[in-house]
């Protein structure tokens, strides 16, 4: 199995850390992983993205043009990465702030109200874990217990008390992801 993922959004949305937790979870189940971020003067409030690959084989290129899954968290990233999902692949996105919804019909598209649900949980920071839960519901490439073990490894000790909250966020994400039908959207317009 090889899963090639792009996660893209604003800097500060936890894009890079979501990728890191995913990569750590992969390690927990003995997979090869790579995590390749876009980098730059991050304080400029620009976009951030990270390519994460999990595979049971050695990973060749950490840098890719097309992906099995795109997890998209803002409009700029939607504009940039909708086209890079492989035919038959998956696009998961948070509709919050999205004005131009995806239009492709040769991929599977899902929505997760990550922002809203995180605010409802009383912790905006947990947003990325809600989205990750949604992704894992669609593609259970890593087991929940491995995600939690990965979290434990990637978080400094002083944040370990937050792991139950993260677990809850993952669950909420899993329970609230909904398929998105492109045809509906077109009809609305």
């Amino acid at each position, binding site marked *: 199995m090889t899963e090639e993922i792009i996660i893209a959004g604003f800097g500060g949305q936890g894009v890079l850390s979501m990728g890191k937790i995913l990569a750590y979870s992969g390690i927990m189940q003995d997979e090869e992983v790579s995590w390749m971020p876009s980098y730059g003067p991050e*304080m400029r*409030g620009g976009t951030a993205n990270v390519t994460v690959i999990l595979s049971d084989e050695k990973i060749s290129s950490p840098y890719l043009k097309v992906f099995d899954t795109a997890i998209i968290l803002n409009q700029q990233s939607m504009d940039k990465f909708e086209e890079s999902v492989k035919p038959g692949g998956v696009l998961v996105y948070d509709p919050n702030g999205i004005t131009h919804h995806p239009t492709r019909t040769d991929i599977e598209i899902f929505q997760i109200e990550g922002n809203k649900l995180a605010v409802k949980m009383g912790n905006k920071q947990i947003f990325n874990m809600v989205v990750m839960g949604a992704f894992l519901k669609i593609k259970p490439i890593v087991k929940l217990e491995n995600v939690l073990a990965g979290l434990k490894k990637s978080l400094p000790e002083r944040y370990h008390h937050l792991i139950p909250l993260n677990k809850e966020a993952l669950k909420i994400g899993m329970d609230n992801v909904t398929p998105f039908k492109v045809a509906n959207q077109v009809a609305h317009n």
Partner: protein
Amino acid sequence: MELLDIIKPENQVFCKTKLMTDTPLSYCPGCGHGTAHNITMEVIDEMGIQEDTIGVAPVGCSVLAYDFMNIDMTQAAHGRAPAVATAIARTWPKKYVFTYQGDGDLAAIGTAETIHACNRGENIVIIFINNGIYGMTGGQMAPTTLEGMKSSTSPFGRDIKTMGSPLKMTELVAQLPGTYFVTRQAVHTHKHVRKAKKAIRQAFENLKLNKGISFVEIVSNCNSGWKMTPNDANEWMVDNMFPYYPLGDIKVNGKLK
């Protein structure tokens, strides 16, 4: 009142600085760089010297100053702006030449160029933004970082024993006979902005006298590097930076105060 009345020139309290371009500033909200740019350009506008001014941009967050300042500018290698400006001023003696530099640029890698340009008494203005940190590269320790202050390369606070003391570059260059006007200002309140602008005006006026370097330090903030909100950063600056880097003139008309 109609909209047209409101925007009549006599009713206007504030408008965009004429010599700033329309490019949106890339600085973090609350950063002092933008204000320092504004007042520098206001001075050049008020003196009517746009055509005769040549600026030298540093390497640091203000590397893109040339995108914002509507004048001719040359971008120098990290720390070398005073050398670049030296040559421009020597070969174009009638022009108003200035550098705009951060504390990493001016007081670390560019120390030699700074000291020697000041020592030779080049006829240039140096505007020195001291925010106590390397902003552009993500918050590393600068020579000006205060004792005990945390940065990404002094994560446990600056330790004087192994990392040296915060460098008072401005006091240092004031000792050199080549400096004519040396002052330390700030831009976090209206009052300070007005004073800083006056100092920059003085500095550019001095160039007409051909008396040597006018050196204007602006103690500023870096809320991103300091990991604070803009307001907290300004308060922290007043409480911590100003006592170590006191505001005011240090050398006027070639005489130490």
